[in-house]
């Protein structure tokens, strides 16, 4: 069943993550919007973070700053990442 707690943009960003990282066993509906993307939550790692950076640029024209601390905040959850996209998208 569709996870109704995702907004349209969140679903879009979730699909971008799945596509970019070639995640096999996860659909957008499996991603809890508030759950951490890295570590215990979705289980993403440091290499995935780099891939996501590229995907954000390609899909939404967003260039991440090199400030690691700030990026960690953006990547904290699907909801946070979607907020970043909403704020800075230029596609």
């Amino acid at each position, binding site marked *: *069943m*569709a996870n109704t707690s995702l907004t349209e943009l969140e679903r879009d960003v979730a699909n971008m993550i*799945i*596509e970019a*990282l*070639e*995640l*096999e*066993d*996860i*659909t957008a509906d*499996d991603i809890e919007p508030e759950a951490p993307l890295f*570590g215990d939550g979705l*289980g993403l*790692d*440091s*290499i995935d973070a780099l*891939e996501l950076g590229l995907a954000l640029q390609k899909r939404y024209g967003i260039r991440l700053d090199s400030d690691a601390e700030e990026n960690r905040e953006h990547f904290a959850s699907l909801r946070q990442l979607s907020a970043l996209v909403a704020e800075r998208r230029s596609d």
Partner: protein
Amino acid sequence: MTPSCHAAPSLTRCPWLSGAVNDIVALSGQQVRTRGELIQAIRSWANTPLPAGRDVALYDSDPWRFTAALLGLWHAGHRVWLPGDNLPETVNHLHQRDLILLGEFPQAWVPPPPVSDMMPEPGLPPEQEAVVLFTSGSSGEPAPIFRTLGQLEAEVAAFERHWPLAQGVVISQVSHQHTWGLTAGLLRALATSHPFGLEIVTWPETLAEWLMNVPVSALISSPPQLSRLPESTTGMPDRAPGRIFSAAAPLPHDAAVQAEALMGSELIEIYGSSESGAIAWRRPCQDTTWQALDDVMLRCDGERTLLRSRRLPEPEQWHEQADHIQLLDEHPARFTLHGRADRIVKVAGKRVSLEGLAHHLKAFPGVLDARCLTIDHSGGRVGAIVAMSSDCIAHDHDTRRALISDLRQHLARAFEPVVLPRFWRFVQRFPVNAQGKLTRAMARHLFDDLDDRRQPRWLDLESSTPDQQRITLEIPERLAALEGHFPERPIVPGIALIHWARQQAERLFGEQDQWRDMRRVRFPAPLLPGDRAVMTLSRQRGDLNITVASHRGQHLQMRLLGVDPMPDHGESS
């Protein structure tokens, strides 16, 4: 029956050319072939003009035709490449090497008539390069291995010193296109003037028939065949083969005990590799340790295993062997075997042992076996092939996801996140080739859906009978056909199921059968992303019935109608 020759076994002295012309050199239950016939066939090949300066590749599943061609080509001074199969990928590879293809190839070279009728000389130089075999490919791409006549002779002679053949026929269940079937099944018979079997005895039923009809001095076999013997002696004849030999992959202990009990003869297991030939032996019903063959020396240097053997290009030098052993005695070497030396790979800059990952996976409840490899996706992540007992295997999206999460957590205690497998393929047992090995190429095929998003994951082909095939498949969550079908609740479109069914029908039965139409197509229940299902294809007269079913029910039923040989008289269904 041909009296066995007591001279030392030899290939260089060409014993196949000497002896009475009516000696029986090969036979089956129905047919015998004489030395005269063999010499005639060899002579024809030996005098066949081949394009100058090019090597030849020979693939022929028929032992008689193969033997005649191989020996004839040797007498003409050729070295012969022996591919393990004649699949399109292999043929391409042989074309790239500019080889002349002889035998069962789609576009085989048609030999012109012999230019003379000269009798071949009964002598061949031991240094002549005789065959080029290929490594099994379980630890990499298949690589060519060159073998001289002297090396082949040394292997045959070692077998004969350890276990002299009793009178009777040498019959084989393994292909002569591979090193084990070639030396043990064919060359040993030729070198000792014992008749060989005119057929490869693939099925247990035909094996019983052979044992009933002909006296068998040695049965050359391997684990896939010995693991599929009937469970009781009913139907097995009283006549026992002189000895049973198994090689090419580890033989499960149960299968060894079963084979000895069923056939009433001693089973010898040979350990070796395509690179080094035969190395050691044991009787698996009694021994857990291996003993080196009498012309092989082994020693350990730290973690490394070193080997000296007359089967190797420089018999006086120590060669490194890929398997780990623990040496218990030195002369003669007695040892226990501890599997392939490790493969260390780098994933995202981190070094990881693929063996180590697999080893940890095997400790997880329900996991029977595991293999890890790097996959050319997502920047070179690890893929895991996990064999699980059927009650532990996942059947749909949620259970699969939960299982993967558990396995990742289990591994995360010992490994860094980036090296944890990202791609998972669950099977009930490893797919293996005729030698019982999961090759690198076969392992990669399990991940083919990553490169073609129109395909499901094809996981497991179990051949029940020649008329029925069952294939396990899984629906990838990112399958192309799921897009927009439907956005809120994706299901696999019927058209995709039909397409897969037709593809598999073509692949598995297309050589024998043709179909003109399909009928009775039903989609009883929808198939969802993440579902695991079994496609069954059954031949019924000329037609092919195809179903796809999962633990939730049936997802496809259809029938492909065969092409009637005589449309006017054929019944229509």
